[in-house]
């Protein structure tokens, strides 16, 4: 039985997932699964439902029907913060960080401890937290900017900070929505490096438009179109798929 095998190796199983907004099906009977340690890239034209899929997984949008299983937990009925605590991390399309706080404080808030009201009140910034924040800051190239207020960072640095905020959460499944959007060539290169480093030992879903970047990082690519899977497989296979060329890559 193939499904039996999938349950063992899969971190995430999405089955018959549908969401409709006033009759418009943004995601239509979608099924796929993500293996342990897999890096999956989702591509597709605008309005294909890519971001909506991430919204559904992380609880931002409620599914109309279908199921999302993360390990053995059904996510469709859970609240956002509960899903996060299960080990699902999400980076948004536009950098969403806490602009009134410093880089250090941004990372500290993301540190997975003291997340209840009284836990936060009594949270103590001990050596362990301090060390972990410095370690993560180094990975995201911000070790010299720990005391800088986040809104003073450049666009690229904000993106890295948000990746760092996810990294410190230590999620099992990491979801990144256009991590290199708006970045310079140099920043893209550094980000690819960064992603390769942080994706070790976890499963990752990336939404991206930049095809060069996708080729650099992807294990497997899923092409979405009108809320359905159009094609799925290795990057080379997908690129040759006439349907994909038709709706997305365009004739060259």
């Amino acid at each position, binding site marked *: 039985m193939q499904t039996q095998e999938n349950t063992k190796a899969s971190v995430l199983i999405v089955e018959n997932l549908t969401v409709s907004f006033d009759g418009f099906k943004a995601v239509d009977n979608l099924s796929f699964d993500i293996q342990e340690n897999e890096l999956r890239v989702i591509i597709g034209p605008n309005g294909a439902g890519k971001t909506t899929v991430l919204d559904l997984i992380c609880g931002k949008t409620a599914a109309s029907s279908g199921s999302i299983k993360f390990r053995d937990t059904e996510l469709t009925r859970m609240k956002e*913060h509960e899903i996060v605590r299960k080990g699902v991390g999400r980076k948004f399309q536009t950098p969403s960080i806490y602009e009134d706080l410093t880089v250090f404080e941004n990372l500290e808030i993301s540190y997975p401890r003291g997340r209840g009201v009284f836990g936060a009140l009594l949270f103590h910034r001990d050596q362990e937290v301090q060390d972990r924040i410095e370690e993560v800051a180094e990975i995201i190239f911000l070790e010299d900017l720990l005391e800088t207020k986040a809104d003073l960072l450049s666009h690229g640095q904000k993106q890295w900070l948000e990746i760092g905020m996810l990294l410190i959460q230590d999620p099992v499944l990491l979801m990144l929505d256009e991590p290199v959007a708006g970045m310079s060539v140099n920043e893209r290169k550094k980000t690819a490096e960064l992603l390769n480093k942080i994706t070790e030992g976890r499963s990752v879903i990336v939404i991206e438009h930049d095809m060069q970047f996708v080729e650099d990082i992807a294990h497997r690519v899923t092409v979405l179109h009108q809320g359905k899977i159009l094609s799925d497989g290795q990057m080379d296979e997908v690129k040759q798929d006439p349907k994909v060329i038709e709706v997305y890559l365009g004739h060259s």
Partner: protein
Amino acid sequence: MSSIYQIVSRYNFLILAVLLLIILPLGLDVFRLNLVSKYLTYAFVALGLVMCWGAGGILSLGQGVFFGLGGYCMAMFLKLEAAKLNIGCTREMQEIGQCIVQSTPGIPDFMDWASMTELPFFWQPFHSLALTIIMILVVPTVFAYIVGAAMFKRRVGGVYFAIITQALASVLSILIIGNAGYIGGFNGITDLRTLHGWDIRTDDAKMVFYFITAGLLLFVLVAAQLTLNSKLGRVLVAMRGQEDRVRFSGYDVANFKIFVFCAAAALAGMGGAMFTLNVAFIHPTFVGIVPSIEMVIFCAVGGRFSLYGAIYGALLVSWAKTVFSEAYPELWLFAMGAIFIFVVLAMPKGLAGVFESHIEPRLKSMFGTRGKTSSPVKLAE
């Protein structure tokens, strides 16, 4: 991490403590000091608003509700004690002309006027001072919890929340006015005389209440500062700008909002109780919309991101109100509206913002780097 010692030893705390505990008591007569005491009771509310509105971004236009609940709890205790005297006439009382005739002796006078014959059940806890103190803290907090849970769990926020809290203020004042027999109606609860037999209307009592009010204010100031300096304070600031993102950092946003709203309500309740003690009455006009908005203005003028600013704002605006309304009573509301508009347009961070950006740097350059003058966490730049 900031300890209590670090907060208390900072110059701004020391200046405030010296001002409240030494300079004002020495410089003012008892009548004026009692006025300051009244202003300070508003500062409790303003502190709560800094936490709730400044840090957490939750604007409540109904803090008068919690101020009133605290104030009424205190007044009910004092009224019951005053009512114990209404048990009929002894010969001594007749001789000094203090004879009070009630058809039902021993209940508050307004109940008797409304032809009630026994004390309503919700007055029972207020026979005991200990229970009263508990009620002063618990009633506003529980009420805030119910309102907060109903709103925040459903993700009602922003301007809708402000409007609902304002409606609550209106509802509560109408409820009080409409129930003259149960709670004193439009007259409020007046003629409060003694606390455990000690006359609260004397100059000595006013002096004592001033110091209790000022001391308690400094105490809750430290508690509020500790809260805002903790990670909870930073979660609130994060929530103010990026509420959704905080959920994806693994926090239940609603719980944090409920907590800070309850904390602000508890502070307002304390302020209300101290108000009743200082002025020896409570009135439904302190519950309604106008005082609730006034309190927001105190906080805005002083600076909604600064606990200290809120205290000075409450003192200054209330003082201005007293001075101005002595001269032109009917113009005060217009003047206050003008102040609010001016502050919003010209100094959105209030007096504290002006101090931080213009005065503090100069003081620093005058005195060199005099210790650590920057606070560990800034609510806003």
